[in-house]
């Protein structure tokens, strides 16, 4: 009986995932940030916003997250190969920030594209805190 109750609530949890951003994302980055820096003191949406628009020439081209996702993450973006991108803000595209694996994959690729390095857990958490707050 207990088992079926548990699996029922797991099922409910899975079913309700696509509706809103995954709350486990932030706790995941928080745990990592604590490991990276014992002095970790929380995430900042303001810093996340700065990360989004900060220009970098590390790749040889001047780029920022806005190069593909546009200055307003509620607007559709475009890849360098001209495919349209759904808006990054989960308030507009509810499937965004629901899947840790997907989010990690694109942080890995996109931080490398823009900054030629990985983003830290602090930066990812800042970014997620901000993008979740964009209404």
């Amino acid at each position, binding site marked *: 009986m207990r088992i079926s109750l548990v699996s029922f609530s797991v099922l409910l949890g899975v079913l309700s995932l696509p509706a809103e951003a995954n709350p486990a994302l932030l706790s995941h980055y928080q745990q990592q940030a604590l490991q990276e820096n014992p002095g970790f003191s929380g995430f900042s949406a303001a810093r996340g916003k700065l990360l989004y628009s900060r220009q970098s020439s590390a*790749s040889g*081209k001047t780029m920022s997250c806005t190069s593909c996702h546009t200055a307003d993450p509620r607007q559709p973006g475009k*890849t*360098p*190969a*001209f*495919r349209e991108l759904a808006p990054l803000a989960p308030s507009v595209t509810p499937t965004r920030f629901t899947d840790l694996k997907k989010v990690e*994959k694109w942080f*890995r*690729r*996109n931080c*490398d*594209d823009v900054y030629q390095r990985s983003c830290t857990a602090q930066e990812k958490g800042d970014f997620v805190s901000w993008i979740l707050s964009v209404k």
Partner: protein
Amino acid sequence: MHHWQKILMMAALMLSGSLYADDDHEGDHHRQPNHTRVKAPAAWQAECGSCHMAYPPGMLPPAAWKKHMDTLRQHYGSNATLDAADEKAIRDFLQLASSENRQPVPTSKPGEPPRITDTRWFQHQHDEIAPAIWKRKSVGSAANCMACHHGAAQGDFDEDSVRIPR
């Protein structure tokens, strides 16, 4: 080009079989292309279709796809790296599904993997398109097949569904 040749070529491209314009094998012009469709892993469409359409494997020879898979960290200025399982599934699929393409690997700019748009058949098919058209804002580059071929994502490059945007 005769109608039957086009049909053959399109079948070849879509079914990842041999390209009709294989100059080294005269007999291939008349041979029915291999119709065994290699089933694509879900990761191919999801991963290779996220920045552009997932280009049909038959459009490049296996050695060209190997170069792509070996250089995903530096993929035309983008990091397109994959996790190990997806990497292997896509690598195997591209090798198998392109195996009948015997054309040479097209030469590309240093540091770039080979382009479909640099193959002889591509340039031949598009030789009436003026350079200025490729640069139109509505097109972007020749690699943006979908700008003109509206069925491209479904593998349809038929000339009847081509429309060059203004």
